[in-house]
């Protein structure tokens, strides 16, 4: 299930939804991304997340489908927030269940690596020097490319 939303999310609730009736899935891996105080050398006070409505859901759905083709997964949950966020706020949640831990870890990483490269979100940070758009990080491209070998 995929959600793109302004409101915050609760990890406990998301985790419980993931493991409900999951008698065969022994592994649950979750990732949460938070607003950090320092990014690319700037002191961050908060950020605004812009997105391309419709395409965000479509691209996340396609990423999750690709992950499900690669690994035997149980449930997958992706939440990405948009709008104004402040320091330490939750930005993104990816939760994956699988029969084995390796598949759960790999699928969760895969989804995050593809999300970082393909899902149409853009961060504008507010720092002491004013507002500025976050630059794409080449490390994220390399992280995605390793899945394509």
């Amino acid at each position, binding site marked *: 299930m995929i959600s793109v939303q302004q409101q915050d999310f609760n990890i406990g609730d998301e985790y419980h939804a993931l493991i409900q009736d999951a008698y065969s899935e022994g592994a649950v891996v979750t990732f949460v991304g938070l607003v950090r105080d320092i990014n690319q050398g700037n002191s961050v006070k908060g950020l605004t997340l812009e997105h391309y409505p419709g395409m965000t859901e479509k691209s996340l759905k396609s990423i999750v489908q690709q992950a499900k083709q690669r690994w035997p997964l149980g449930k997958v949950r992706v939440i990405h927030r948009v709008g104004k966020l402040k320091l330490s706020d939750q930005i*993104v949640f990816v939760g994956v269940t699988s029969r084995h831990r390796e598949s759960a870890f790999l699928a969760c990483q895969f989804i995050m690596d593809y999300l970082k490269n393909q899902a149409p*979100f853009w961060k504008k940070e507010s720092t002491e020097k004013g507002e500025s758009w976050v630059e*794409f990080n080449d490390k994220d491209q390399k992280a995605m490319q390793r899945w394509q070998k």
Partner: protein
Amino acid sequence: MNKILFFGQLKERIGCANTQVELEYPSSVAEVKLQLQQRGELWQQLLAQGNVLSAVNQTMASDETDINAGDEIAFFPPVTGG
């Protein structure tokens, strides 16, 4: 007639969130870019940037992607979510 959307820094610098173009079909993302670049120096400069990404009907596209009537086209900088 095709709807064109801009996002992120590109939208801000170009000073436009959405516009429309008239095309002869089948067209391509490259042709849309060329037509938009005729709107002035700023458009020309910004859309010529190598890192401008495009989507057609909300799916990542390339310069070669075909465009037909009613297709929604978007241009934006590299994504920075997550």
